[in-house]
């Protein structure tokens, strides 16, 4: 684990600085590649940053080792956030981001473990990441290694998520940790019918608790709160843990936050791009 005890203020500053860099990278490289999933990449950015940089022991030297922590971005459409972090951690070359999603770029549109170092499992078809994480956690049992899986709230509409949740409870897999990026929106959603419940996942805490998981909720943009919650999850020994990360879709860019469905997956005009970069550069507001 890379996290060292240090003054919370300086750690907070460092994380904020990192998150600004990450947001700028996400916007820059997505725009450069012709657009993509701005909303989800920015909602999950802070969670991914904390996990990848401060929790898991993944680095350029141990990518191919069998016994180490694992991280699976099950909501694979936000791959750009993962790739930018892998570059910030020197696991992949930052220049490869220039060709994100291009032919033979080594960075597929959705994470591909067969071509990108640091991608622990291929994702993109939603709902499968927790199950794959269970397989890893079973093989890593008693190896002092943890498996982290990040899913979306919309993704939790997939039945396989709940097959996996029931299984992990039955086998009391305590080195498996799931984070739900509850950004409150999905591609098309349910706005066409005002009588339908609108959130992608209704009462997430109750649902996961009903499946026997240890449940914690957190502001998904508050780095220190995320970090402390993750440490508590690793100390929970009686079964799997889930962190409900309350996030905002497109967090850090006003135009994205105001229109989460529109900016779920889109391309930006030059004006929108410059404005987004500027706003992301001063994103320090942790209030939801």
């Amino acid at each position, binding site marked *: 684990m890379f996290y060292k005890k240090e003054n919370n203020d300086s750690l907070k500053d460092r994380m904020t600085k990192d998150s600004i860099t990450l947001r700028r990278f996400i916007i820059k490289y997505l725009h450069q590649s012709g657009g993509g999933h701005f909303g989800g990449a920015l909602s999950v950015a802070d969670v991914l940053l904390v996990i990848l940089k401060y929790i898991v022991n993944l680095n350029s030297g141990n990518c191919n080792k*069998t016994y180490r922590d694992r991280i699976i971005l099950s909501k694979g459409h936000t791959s750009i956030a993962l790739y930018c972090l892998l570059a910030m951690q020197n696991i992949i070359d930052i220049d490869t981001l220039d060709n994100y999603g291009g032919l033979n770029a080594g960075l597929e549109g959705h994470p*591909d*473990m*067969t071509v990108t170092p640091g991608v*622990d*499992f*291929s994702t*993109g*078809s939603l*709902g*499968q990441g927790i*199950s*794959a*994480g*269970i*397989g*890893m956690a*079973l*093989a*890593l049992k008693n190896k002092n290694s943890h498996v982290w899986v990040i899913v979306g709230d919309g993704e939790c509409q997939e*039945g*396989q998520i709940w*097959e*996996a949740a*029931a*299984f992990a409870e*039955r086998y009391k897999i305590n080195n498996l940790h799931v984070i739900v990026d509850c950004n409150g929106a999905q591609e098309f959603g349910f706005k066409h019918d005002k009588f339908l419940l609108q959130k992608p996942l209704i009462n997430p805490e109750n649902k996961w608790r009903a499946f026997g998981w240890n449940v914690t909720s957190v502001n998904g943009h508050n780095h220190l709160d995320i970090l402390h919650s993750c440490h508590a999850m690793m100390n929970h020994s009686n079964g799997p843990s889930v962190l409900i990360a309350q996030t905002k879709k497109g967090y850090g860019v006003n135009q994205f936050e105001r229109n989460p469905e529109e900016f779920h997956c889109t391309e930006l005009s030059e004006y929108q791009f410059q404005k987004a970069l500027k706003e992301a550069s001063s994103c320090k507001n942790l209030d939801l």
Partner: protein
Amino acid sequence: MQKLGFIVTDYLAEKANLDERIWVFDADLADSNGAESFIKTHSSRYIAAGIAEQNMISIAAGMATLNRIPFVYSFSSFLVYQAFNQIRTCISQTSLPVILVGSHAGGCCGKNGKTHTALSDIALMRSLPNFSIWAPCNKNDIAYSIDTIIKEKKPAYIRLPRDTCNVPFQKKEKPFYWIGKPSSVALISYGYSTQWAYEAQQTLKKKNIHIGILHFNRVSPISCSDIKNSLNNVKTALILEDHYTSGGLFSSLNELSLSTVLHSRGWHSSWSGQSGETEELKEQQALSTQSIINKLLKLGLNDSVKRIS
């Protein structure tokens, strides 16, 4: 006589004594498909996934990323049809060494009927990159298939029937081989259909008529040049399929532009499966031993016998 699934598990248990990478998964059918006996010898490497095949497939794939070799059991229908997307994304696209062990494949599922049949599973599975498909018909085939699969460290599908097979043990460690000498009019088969072919062969033998059977233990991939050599002196072949005649071995061999004239007998494409005893189903679908022999005679088996004599 043991079902092939039970023989697979016995062999795996033996291998697992020396190979700690081997794990067995099952989706709540272990007593029917044969996975059960692995619990007795290696309970710590046995995973009861419950009735949740999609989850089971992805768990096995995740485990395979850590140098484990999971063998994943269920009925073929529930593996291939229920979890096809997970097989595609988590196993085929990653090329991870997860081995599907599907029992009750084909059309003979007793009272279970149409939901439990797998009549187009080969068509689906051979459309996926990186997979090999195996259809053993005896203990020796099983040992060869499992040894090869473990050595190759790639995805595989072992296709097994519900019924038992009594095709004699043959010490032939090849993806495909002749049972009896090659003949001008021959049978081609795999897995359970080799049992049908064998029954036809034995019936004809009593009438002093010989017919060779080219049995495929591995259905896919197949080597074009090797098959052409094997069929060198075969003018006409009837391919027996415990599968729809489209998308299975008949389709594969037709893609090879062989000089042998190929015909097929399998489950009719308009049939979805139904309850019934194996012999009743075969009779109804023109797959009984007598129906197969009649077809062979129409294809000139008698003439070829006369020519040979």
